[in-house]
């Protein structure tokens, strides 16, 4: 059970975090066992990514021990923007609706140059998706909801105040040393999921290098409490008069909390800039005489880097432990959750003996593709926001100067290209033999669409998909009976495409079938059902595209 404290204290340098959920350490019988107990999966790190991985595996019936060195969440304010694809994953895990209700939904971004609005962009121009383009919600609320969900799942056991201190690699397992308030113990695991964040102990213990770029510019990130009726939009300024020569970002969060990022340049003095009077003065220039309180202040320099490999024998890296990006574009936690989702079903299939270990290697290829995409996008954004030299800044400023009059220049402005799901260019898809148009793409998550049940209830396409492989079938002449182990989601009588949106988004004709992986990514589609082809496509995935099918 969590105990929540609200109201933090102000220290000399900055305000400390103000919301904490605290959980209890419990002694586990594993700590007293004569010989190390063996577990199928240990996850290290109860951040959003480790929690999502544990929940997903637990729902698939895989017993998971999740360890975390802390016994609380809410250390500092971090992620706030949760993207549509992440929300869809949260929905499958059982917390999506709750988080959307708790968060603030937004889809409009506004860009200013100086004090002039240069343009606005709508991140969700089309209706008919269950999940919004984005919600803003403090990361600790997301973590708390995930902990609550994990606690409901029998197969998941969370051990707070359990700190990983040693890893010994063996052929078919790892031996872990874990420190607790009662002293250390040893635990064996068939698989270790390393979700222990940017300063990953697992990474250090394996001696892995974590290479990439660190950006010179420093950024002041503040969460303030303020009753204000600013619109629920992402507002980004280049060179505003209240913060000349630099950029600023403002975002609404629940509870009258606002996130403000102020670029400080490379030479800012970190200790000086964190002083409350200094921060307050900067914010007053931005906000005028509106009263506000500082909730939390920190200064960051951002990194873009990743591990060369995410799979190291029986140790599987996910989230910030595997890769780190600058926050422009909200790609950190969002991509980590997508790592967790990509890994969970694959690992479950391998543990259950449904797939060979080669499937794990596809976690690495698919998610390295995603990490590289995320790193490229957030590097470009950071370079646009903080050009490397005067010469580069001149070009950036020319883009901004043209933006008022030329559409092409508006499209070049990059204040963060917000996170979208990766289209896996993967051996796990069967290339189309029939032509398909429309927004659905092989290797991408299925686009959502509104549907209506026979009894009149409205719902969404993604809700009709199960946790395993699903064959989505459009009503046609021939009956569709998917091969064993593949669920059927039929669009026709029980679940109806009343608005025609399913057909439009999938370019569906009567009788067309679509094979979805357990993570809802499309891996094959045909104009007519053929049981042999569907089974072969599923087998191809489980055999990791190794041509075994």
């Amino acid at each position, binding site marked *: 059970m969590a105990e929540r404290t609200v109201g933090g204290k102000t220290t000399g340098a900055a305000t400390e975090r103000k919301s904490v959920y605290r959980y209890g350490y419990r002694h586990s019988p594993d700590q007293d066992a004569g010989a190390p107990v063996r577990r199928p999966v240990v996850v290290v790190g109860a951040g959003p990514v480790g929690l999502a991985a544990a929940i997903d595996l637990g729902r698939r019936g895989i017993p998971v021990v999740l360890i975390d060195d802390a016994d609380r969440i809410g250390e500092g304010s971090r992620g706030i923007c949760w993207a549509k694809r992440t929300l869809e994953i949260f929905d499958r895990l059982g917390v999506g609706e709750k988080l959307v209700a708790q968060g603030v939904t937004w889809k409009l971004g506004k860009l200013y140059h100086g004090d002039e609005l240069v343009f606005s962009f709508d991140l969700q121009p089309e209706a008919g998706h269950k999940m919004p383009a984005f919600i803003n919600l403090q990361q600790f609320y997301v973590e708390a909801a995930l902990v609550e969900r994990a606690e409901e799942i029998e197969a998941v056991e969370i051990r707070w105040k359990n700190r990983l201190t040693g890893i010994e690699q063996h052929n078919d397992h790892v031996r872990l040393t874990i420190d607790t308030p009662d002293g250390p113990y040893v635990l064996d695991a068939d698989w270790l999921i390393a979700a222990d964040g940017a300063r990953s102990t697992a990474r250090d213990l394996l001696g892995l290098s974590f290479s990439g770029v660190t950006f010179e510019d420093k950024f002041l990130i503040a969460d303030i409490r303020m009753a204000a009726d600013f619109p629920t939009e992402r507002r980004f300024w280049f060179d505003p008069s209240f913060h000349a020569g630099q950029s600023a970002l403002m975002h609404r969060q629940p509870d009258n909390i606002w996130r403000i990022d102020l670029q400080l340049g490379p030479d800012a003095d970190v200790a000086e800039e964190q002083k409350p009077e200094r921060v307050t003065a900067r914010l007053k220039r931005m906000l005028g005489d509106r009263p506000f309180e500082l909730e939390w202040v920190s200064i960051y320099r951002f990194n873009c880097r990743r591990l060369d490999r995410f799979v190291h024998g029986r140790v599987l890296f996910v989230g910030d432990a595997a890769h780190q990006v600058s926050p422009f574009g909200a790609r950190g936690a969002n991509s980590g959750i997508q790592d967790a989702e990509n890994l969970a079903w694959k690992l479950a299939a391998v543990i259950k003996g449904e797939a060979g270990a080669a499937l794990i290697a596809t976690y690495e290829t698919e998610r390295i593709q995603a990490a590289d995409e995320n790193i490229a996008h957030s590097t470009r954004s950071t370079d646009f926001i903080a050009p490397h030299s005067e010469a580069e800044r*001149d*070009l950036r*400023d*020319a*883009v901004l*100067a*043209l933006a008022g009059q*030329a559409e*092409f*220049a508006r499209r*070049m402005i990059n204040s963060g290209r917000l996170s979208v799901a990766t289209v896996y260019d993967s051996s796990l898809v069967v290339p189309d033999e029939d032509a398909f148009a429309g927004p659905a793409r092989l290797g991408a998550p299925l686009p959502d669409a509104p549907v209506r049940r026979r009894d009149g209830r409205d719902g969404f396409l993604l809700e009709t998909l199960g946790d395993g492989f699903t064959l989505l079938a459009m009503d046609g002449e021939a009956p569709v009976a998917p091969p064993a182990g593949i669920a059927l989601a039929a669009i026709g009588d029980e679940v109806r495409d009343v608005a025609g949106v399913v057909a439009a988004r999938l370019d569906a004709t009567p009788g067309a079938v679509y094979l979805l992986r357990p993570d809802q990514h499309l891996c094959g589609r045909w104009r007519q059902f053929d049981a042999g082809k569907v089974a072969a496509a599923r087998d191809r995935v489980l055999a990791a595209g190794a041509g075994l099918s």
Partner: protein
Amino acid sequence: MAKLVSQSRFADPDAAFLALVEARRGLSREQAAALDTRLVLILANHIGDLDVLGEAIALAKASGPAPAL
């Protein structure tokens, strides 16, 4: 793949040069540089071809003095 055209394309090259000269007449070097930067962006977009742009950048780099290190 489109190629950069470096043969003359203006019927009256002198007039084209004059248009560019007149655009910067009376400007300081700094103002002219800023104008040129905007022009580069406008013209690059008009060309709208990354390969041609790459060739143009290469030609411009190759024909200027090497940067002092």
